[in-house]
């Protein structure tokens, strides 16, 4: 078996990091940051938490290249979904009133 066994302390560290991230996102949610910074901070923390879960709890860090490709393809298609939709909605008012 060439399966990689993630050591216990890494699981515990990730678990604690996720809890800290949750506390941080709640704290940041109540602070009034300038502009769209509240959204950016909330999403950044969420992306970091999700990345930790994917890499360590879901073992992607230790998985084959093929798993990487498949997971990245999801992000790629998601980016297409968002980019094409918003290229419509966010530009509708550029050519006159709407």
């Amino acid at each position, binding site marked *: *078996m*060439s*399966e990689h*066994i*993630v050591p*216990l302390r890494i*699981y515990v560290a*990730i*678990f604690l990091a*996720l*809890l800290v991230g*949750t506390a941080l*996102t*709640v704290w940041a*949610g*109540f*602070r*009034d*940051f300038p502009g769209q910074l*509240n*959204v950016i901070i*909330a*999403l950044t*923390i*969420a992306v970091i*938490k*999700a990345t930790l*879960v*994917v890499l*360590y*709890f*879901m*073992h992607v860090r230790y*998985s*084959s290249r*093929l*798993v990487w490709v*498949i*997971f990245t*393809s*999801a*992000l790629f*298609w*998601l980016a297409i*979904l*968002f980019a094409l*939709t*918003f290229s419509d*909605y*966010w530009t509708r008012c550029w050519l006159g009133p709407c």
Partner: protein
Amino acid sequence: MADSASIEHEASHAALQHHFENMEQQREAGTLGMWVFLVTEIMFFGGMFLAYTLYRSKYPEAFASASNHLSWQLGAINTGVLIFSSFTMAMAVYSAQIGKRRNQVVCLGLTILLGLTFLGIKAIEYHEKYVDHLIPGKLFPRNPFNASTVHLLPGASANNVEMFYWIYFAMTGMHAVHMIIGVGLLSVIMYFAARGRYGPEYHAPVEISGLYWHFVDIVWIFLFPLLYLLGRHLEHGG
């Protein structure tokens, strides 16, 4: 050649299917299949996240008002519960990998319990929304939607508050359905784990169910700040 291959096959684990060369290949194939399924799940939830982003950018005041009415405390507790359940799930896989059967069953049991706790808290939240007339539309004819319990920020309209609750119930509802399926899956896995089916050589079903469970956790990691927290600062800070 064919003989030596079949002898090798027989010498390996009983769980090895005939169309795989060895346990490693079988495990890889299973994991890969689960990831392909998870990609479709990401796209499925992605569509709802898209709807959320679109309407939130169009009606930020209404979305902030409606979002502030949710209980961030219950949302935060549920986030903690789910993260803890993801940890116990990871521990169940780990226990299988190192061959600790008792720990494996205990961890799976804990994961199921935490999943049910999450669903229980979710039910309390849904009931609060029902009492406050915040179930969108006229799903409950005697409790039609009425935004009067929501403190509307300047520029927020009741119709758009209702839009937030459509999205809230669609997203958290689909998430809850996934949780229920996950609890069902893990119950089956726990039954087989208790009978000693999974060990260091064979634990693909535990691993794959774990992938699903972690995915559902990740969806919530995004749902919590987006639905419960964005807009808080408009009420409290500003």
